[in-house]
């Protein structure tokens, strides 16, 4: 009887552990156009330039997508260790430059990066190495990565910030986005600019 009881407890614990994994995986579905973005809370950047870029005000330690001053935010899921992300870094920097230079999009379309499995140190190494001008947030325990379906990297998610405080995914793509001018036009339309 004692043996059955012990086995039952073990089975329950094992089932719970497996279920928690399954639930985490189920929570994380790869974003698709038309979806509402998963709940994304990020730490307020330590650098003033990053806070200014995002238009963050207030004294909180974290912020949400709705707090960013923009019509549209392009999220890049990347990793310092990903060779494709390394190769794409200059292209994404050029997109950022093009956005800032264009009066129609400057200040209205923002880019942020999320370093899947990367520590703060690793994210800063990536930024420094490639001169990344936009904020990149560490995701050391893959929490955000899991929420977006454990996508391969780089993965780009364009998110329109709606006036009602919700966020809609307008584009989601794996790998490079191709030519900067064409992609910028796509983002402009998605942002309603």
């Amino acid at each position, binding site marked *: 009887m004692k*043996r059955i009881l*012990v*086995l039952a407890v*073990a*089975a329950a*614990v*094992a*089932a719970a*552990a*497996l279920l*928690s*994994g399954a639930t*985490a995986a189920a929570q994380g579905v790869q974003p698709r156009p038309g979806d509402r973005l998963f709940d994304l809370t990020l730490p307020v950047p330590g650098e003033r330039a990053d806070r200014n870029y995002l238009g963050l005000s207030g004294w909180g330690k974290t912020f949400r997508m709705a707090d960013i001053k923009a019509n549209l935010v392009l999220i890049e899921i990347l*990793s*310092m*260790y*990903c*060779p*494709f*992300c*390394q*190769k794409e870094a200059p292209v994404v920097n050029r997109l950022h430059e093009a956005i800032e230079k264009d009066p129609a999009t400057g200040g209205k379309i923002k880019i942020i990066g999320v370093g*899947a*499995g990367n*520590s703060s*140190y*690793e994210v800063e*190494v*990536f930024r420094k*190495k490639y001169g990344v001008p936009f904020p990149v947030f560490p995701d050391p*325990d*893959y929490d955000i*990565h*899991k929420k977006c379906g*454990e*996508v*391969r*990297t*780089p993965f780009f998610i364009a998110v329109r910030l709606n006036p009602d405080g919700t966020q809609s995914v307008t584009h989601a793509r*794996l*790998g490079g986005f191709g030519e900067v001018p064409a992609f910028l036009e796509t983002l402009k339309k998605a942002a309603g600019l």
Partner: protein
Amino acid sequence: MTKTAALIILVLAFALGTSALAQTHSEAYKDNIYSTGGLKPVDSVLKVKVGDRAPDFTLPSIAGQMVALGQYRGKKNVVLSFVPAAWTPVCSDQWPGYNIVKDLFDASDAILLGITVDNIPTLYAWTNQMGHLWFPVLSDFYPHGKVAEAYGVLRSDGTAERALFVIDKKGGIRWIDVHDINKRPPLESLVRELEKLK
């Protein structure tokens, strides 16, 4: 009751190991990464310790040369990075990170030697997906895992541990990290040790 306890441990280890697994793959490898699932974190017993003289070896590199640990003695500090196997999840996203921080190795007058137990053609094809690597990639394929065995990082399935060894110019072992095979060692841990060599 002993059998029952063993069964419980097995079931729990499997369940917890599976649920804890998290990793990312670069699109550079497309669908070519073989999923290993959760593995026993460490499956070998170290044969060296900090302060020991590092066992010497000579191994073929993917560049077609033979590389000996001894050739760096008195000239360079050496970091050995054993990774378990080509075309597997965490390994494929480890060396590309080291590839962008050559300056950090240079600052400590250190060379990196990447080692797996795969053969040269496999290593060649795999590392080609990472872009041009600045450090030698060595094959500990034949006699299989001889160097990994000498350091005590050869696992029972014939793969190597995910292990880092920092060796100074005198050939002494300064730091060892036999990491959980399922996780990538944080870069800052290695850099901290490199800085101690300055």
